[in-house]
């Protein structure tokens, strides 16, 4: 018997299906305003349901495993998916962008989640999947957003500030002196959502994980403690990941000869075409 059936009320199949009717609100609105979202809404709803039901099965299986290697492999797979999705939302690409994103996501999430399970929360054993996997998931989901925002902003910033950057280079600036304003702005923008969410935490939003714990019958005071730890984990992992990915992109889009290498940048659509060809 899984722990979930002990705490909260179980949602029956019929009622689960009934909840799907809520999406009709969106479908109706889309039809009335001709937003053209009907198809996307349908696909998104079906994907969400199927993915979550599958994850339910996978997690149930995973929580009964006790091999560290297996659990770490699952974690690595999650990090890879996050690294790839972070890039897919950007409007421009360069060779090596996926590797940069993967490295940044993996290094930052491994470091922060590792510290959390070995030092802060200390489940037994440290790789206990019931702790490790949800914690990693929370960290990855947020780091992904930061990385894709930071990358996108950095590439866009270099493009729009190109004349300024090259003017500085022509006046004898090093590549760092010429690009630092763009680097700073990209990192700053990528950190804003995390800071904003911490600002209103508990006042406007009750985070999903805390809601879940409370529904399970956990004492709110205990659930809150988990939430605090998780938010600090998210903030530091996002900062590390964004710093890493923007730094690697900076190294790639400039050269040791202090040149701007925007010729290495292509639009996402063209990059996709190139891959298909």
């Amino acid at each position, binding site marked *: 018997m899984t722990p979930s059936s002990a705490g909260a009320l179980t949602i029956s199949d019929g009622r689960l299906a009934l909840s799907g009717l809520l999406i009709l609100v969106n479908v109706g609105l889309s039809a009335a305003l001709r937003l053209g979202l009907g198809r996307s809404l349908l696909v998104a709803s079906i994907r969400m349901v199927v993915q979550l039901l599958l994850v339910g099965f996978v997690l149930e299986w995973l929580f009964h495993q006790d091999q560290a290697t297996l659990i770490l492999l699952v974690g690595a797979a999650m990090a890879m998916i996050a690294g790839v999705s972070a890039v897919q939302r950007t409007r421009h690409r360069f060779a090596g962008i996926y590797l940069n994103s993967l490295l940044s996501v993996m290094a930052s999430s491994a470091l922060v989640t590792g510290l959390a399970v070995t030092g802060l929360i200390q489940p037994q054993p440290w790789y206990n999947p019931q702790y490790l996997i949800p914690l990693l998931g929370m960290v990855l989901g947020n780091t992904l957003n930061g990385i894709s925002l930071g990358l996108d902003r950095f590439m866009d910033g270099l493009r729009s500030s190109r004349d300024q950057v090259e003017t500085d280079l022509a*006046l004898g600036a090093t590549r760092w002196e010429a690009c630092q304003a763009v680097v700073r702005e990209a990192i700053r923008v990528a950190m804003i959502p995390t800071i904003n969410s911490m600002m209103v935490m508990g006042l406007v939003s009750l985070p999903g994980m805390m809601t879940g714990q409370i529904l399970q019958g956990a004492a709110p005071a205990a659930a809150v403690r988990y939430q605090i730890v998780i938010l600090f984990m998210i903030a530091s992992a996002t900062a590390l990941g964004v710093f890493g990915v923007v730094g690697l992109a900076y190294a790639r889009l400039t050269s040791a000869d202090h*040149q701007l290498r925007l010729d290495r940048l292509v639009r996402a659509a063209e990059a996709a075409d190139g891959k298909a060809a």
Partner: protein
Amino acid sequence: MPSRPAPLDRPLLLSATGLERRLGDRLLWSRLDLALAGGDRLGLVAPSGAGKTLLLRTLALLDPPQTGTFHLLGRPPAAWGLPRWRAMVLYLAQRPVAGGGTVAANLRAPWRFQERRGQGRWSHGRITGWLAALGRDAAFLDYDAERLSGGELQLLALLRGLQFDPTVLLLDEPTASLDAATTAAVEALLTDWLAAGARACVLISHDGEQIERFATRTLELQR
């Protein structure tokens, strides 16, 4: 105006040999040699799209590696370091850019680059002297750089470059947005500045008469 080779009685400042540049599949130029001696004012003559701007960018080493060897005062770029090279072979872009703040703030900003540390600081007197020669008073220094006209922006860019006394000044349409009187003043100012040391410049201009007036020799790029 016939093209004459660089005279040998004056010191050789910049040499570039075997230059080749492609843009996509198109060969812009190949086996191009170029030498600048002190006092040279080289006018680049070529139809639009022949790569005049790219040639200046190439000399400032702003673009990814291309075919060709470069020497400044006998030393290759690697020996100088790229920031130092660009401080000495200074390129002024066709469309000048200014950052936020006043004209004075923009003139001061590049003095803070690592490359220039310990090499002096901006001289108010020198700048106002130049401004007077250009028919502007010192109030120009307090203008908001982001609200300058195209012509004023060109003056700002010119002074921002001149104040570092580069060995070679690469001018890309420096007077395109200026009236006739200011253009004449800029030419006179440049002539004086060039005469004050072992310096040379390369000029791109859409105005054939300006090349005729200002250049001591010309280089023609074929399309």
